[in-house]
């Protein structure tokens, strides 16, 4: 169903982080932007459909006082209704750039002052909903930034205190503006999920408790929360109630990335077991219950996958990064 396409070379290999691939689709220009974290640096590149890299850019975390250069934890493009920003999180703070990475428009330093010395301080987990960008932190707090239509006048508008352990990932409802009650879901190291309704003040709708294993990646689609766990399971919940509907023993190792193709309701799961699986989510027309089917499985031999994303809204192509691998692998359906 899917076949391998030409891969895109990277200047330096991908670091062993979860969700270590961000994709921004620009159908108008027939271009795709990719962002991958190397460690102390992150690489942005844009590629034509054939996979030829056209432009490349290296980003670095802002230097701090420490001896070692700060490590980047994630890069992610946030598509707001009126502009696209690139957000970079590190062990120093949060950096927001114009979408091509050329100009840094905002810098938020992390304050580790109240942190015990045993705690590593970092930001991780990025998502946009409406005119807000949410970024998770080591303490469990989620920072909500209010983004103006243009210019650098970004304001920290709220801090959400739903988590007690480091935030791992944040997802937003792709079909915004509809009647979705829940439009943000946050996940943490303990596996706890918090479902939020965004707005001038965020409302906590549901808490879905963990079960002793982290939740490194989470997605939200039409009121369905899809969560990938450290024990290789994918679970689907009703977002507003937190009810468990589907439990998939999907992978043999920790899941490191989930992604959603909103047009078709396809779910991508990638794990450290070298496998990538594609699932189809549905709602039973009669009962409204969530259903799922397995569509495709792909083994990336000898690659500890660290990032995976769909490259188009219908889920007919996807890209994968792997630890120590200096290329982006691409697959598309025939």
């Amino acid at each position, binding site marked *: 169903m899917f076949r391998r396409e030409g891969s895109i070379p990277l200047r330096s290999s991908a670091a062993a982080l979860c969700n270590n691939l961000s994709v921004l689709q620009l159908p108008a220009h027939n271009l795709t932007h990719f962002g991958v974290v190397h460690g102390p640096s992150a690489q942005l590149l844009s590629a034509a459909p054939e996979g030829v890299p056209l432009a490349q850019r290296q980003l670095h975390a802002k230097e701090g006082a420490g*001896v070692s250069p700060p490590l980047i934890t994630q890069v992610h493009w946030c598509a707001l209704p009126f502009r696209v920003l690139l957000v970079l999180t590190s062990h120093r703070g949060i950096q927001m750039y114009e979408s091509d990475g050329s100009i840094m428009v905002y810098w938020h330093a992390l304050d580790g002052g109240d942190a015990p010395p045993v705690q590593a301080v970092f930001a991780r987990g990025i998502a946009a909903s409406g005119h807000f960008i949410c970024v998770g932190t080591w303490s469990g707090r989620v920072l909500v930034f209010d983004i103006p239509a243009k210019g650098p006048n970004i304001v920290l508008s709220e801090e959400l205190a739903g988590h007690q352990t480091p935030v791992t990932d944040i997802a937003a409802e792709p079909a915004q503006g509809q009647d979705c009650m829940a439009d943000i879901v946050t996940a943490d190291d303990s596996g706890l999920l918090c479902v939020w309704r965004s707005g001038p003040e965020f409302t906590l709708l549901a808490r879905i408790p963990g079960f002793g294993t982290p939740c490194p990646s989470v997605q939200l689609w039409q009121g369905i929360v899809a969560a990938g766990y*450290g024990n290789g399971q994918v679970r689907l919940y009703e977002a507003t109630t937190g009810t468990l509907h589907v439990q998939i023993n999907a992978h043999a190792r920790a899941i490191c990335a989930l992604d959603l193709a909103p047009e078709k309701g396809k779910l991508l799961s990638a794990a450290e077991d070298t496998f990538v699986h594609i699932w189809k989510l549905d709602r039973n027309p009669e009962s409204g219950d969530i259903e799922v089917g397995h569509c495709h499985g792909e083994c990336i031999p000898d690659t500890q996958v660290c990032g995976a994303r769909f490259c188009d809204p219908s889920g007919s192509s996807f890209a994968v990064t792997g630890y120590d691998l200096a290329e982006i692998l691409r697959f598309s359906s025939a």
Partner: protein
Amino acid sequence: MSVRTLPLLFLNLGGEMLYILNQRLQAQNIPTDKTRKVLNDIISTMFNRKFIEELLKPQELYSKKALRTVYDRLAHASIMRLSQASMDKLYNLMTMAFKYQVLLCPRPKDVLLVTFNHLDAIKGFIQDSPAILHQVDETSRQLIELYNLMTMAFKYQVLLCPRPKDVLLVTFNHLDAIKGFIQDSPAILHQVDETSRQLIEIYGSLSAGDFQLIRQTLLIFFQDLHIRVKLPMRKRGRAVGSVEQYHGCAVTQTTLSAIWSPPLRPPFSLAQHVDQSILSGSDAGVRLLSLSGGILADLEEVSIFLKDKVQNSNGRFVLPVSGPVPWGTEVPGLIRTFNSKGEEVKTAEFKHGGNYVPAAQEGSFELYGDRVLKLGTNMYSVNPPAEAKTSTASDSAASRTPESIAPNPLAKEELNLLARLMGGMEIKTPSGPEPGFRLNLFTTDEEEEQAALASQEEPSCEVIDIQATQTGEPRQRVTMVGLSRQPCQHAFLIPCHLAFLFQDPQRGEELARIMGEFEITDEPRRSTSKGDDLLAMMDEL
């Protein structure tokens, strides 16, 4: 990244270093008392209480260069001396072995199990050293340490953690092994045990997410390190048969053996002779080691076998997609659907693509116990640790019985044995009264010198080849298969970490600064960097 990573990195790399040194020392017939002194001195330095306490404080990882300097000091804590090139080789072996172990950890917290494996092995090293206690200066120091350890013994029960973590088990494996090295030196043994207890205290309470961060930090430390273990061999052109002569080494599926020329003699017990013959590099004696028939299998096939089982041509490790799943993980392939009342309404299966079996049991995170996980145990020993579980022939499912959580332990063993095969070790009898000796990780002095030169000439190399070289006759250079195609024959000597450490100029400057500080060890202690403190402490030991 995680500020809890340094102790695990230090202990596991130290364990790997001891495996290699122990193997080399034994294979080279270094007098037993000297071997024991070297191991005891190094282990004693490594587990010095103050040093361990400092190490266990939350802190960021050292730079690769700083950590390397620590191991330089550690390797020279005794009467043994290593050249720069040999030290480079040793360090590359250590780091590559531990990178492999981290990469193949089924779960993040299995790194801990690897560490336990190393500790267990180090304990074993000290096991057969009766002479060590008789060294007066040693003894006095050990008495003090023993006292410290007695007072610490109260902590023991408090520190044992009821809820174990797997990353710790890996570390414990290393520590268990270390204990083996020092069995007859109770003081040092206690030092190691104390370290185990402190590990249990600190790491036992960490969450799976903490361990994930530790593992990611370790992997970032090892990122872009691609030492390619190659097995070169050359046929000497005689007829295949019992008198066939080879230069080089061969590996059979069942075990590793080395065969080369001349002359060929009747088969010997591999276990008894492989080390000596492979590593001695002397001109005398029997060169062929053979198992029961079939040893002269196609050598090229052997090479491919190794490559397929352990590493790819690009230096990446082979990741297995079969065997037991991690403890706490279900075998993939099942979809369960629930209705809104929480009742299971449907189950369906899907084809995952891997071939997994359920996890057998969780490894022990206690001071003593079966770690289950084999990562981090001493794979350099001729007789590897006995496989605990033997499946009975009558059990039809025996082949499916998971022997170990470690995926493909055989492959791991081969990787390490390969590394062991690399180059001989040469001991120079010192001319002066100094009772020390020099350990050479190369076959000949010439190779070592060339290697040192090569490392100066080519400061960076992306893929580093380890050539498992062996000359059958002394001082005879053997052109290895594939060697000539390499731009740099001894590329593996290049401190590979430098290549990417210095990829960023700013970082390079910082490192150069730190390095400069390390060199001025005579000056009064300064606390300009965290690396300085530990190094100074090690110097004072």
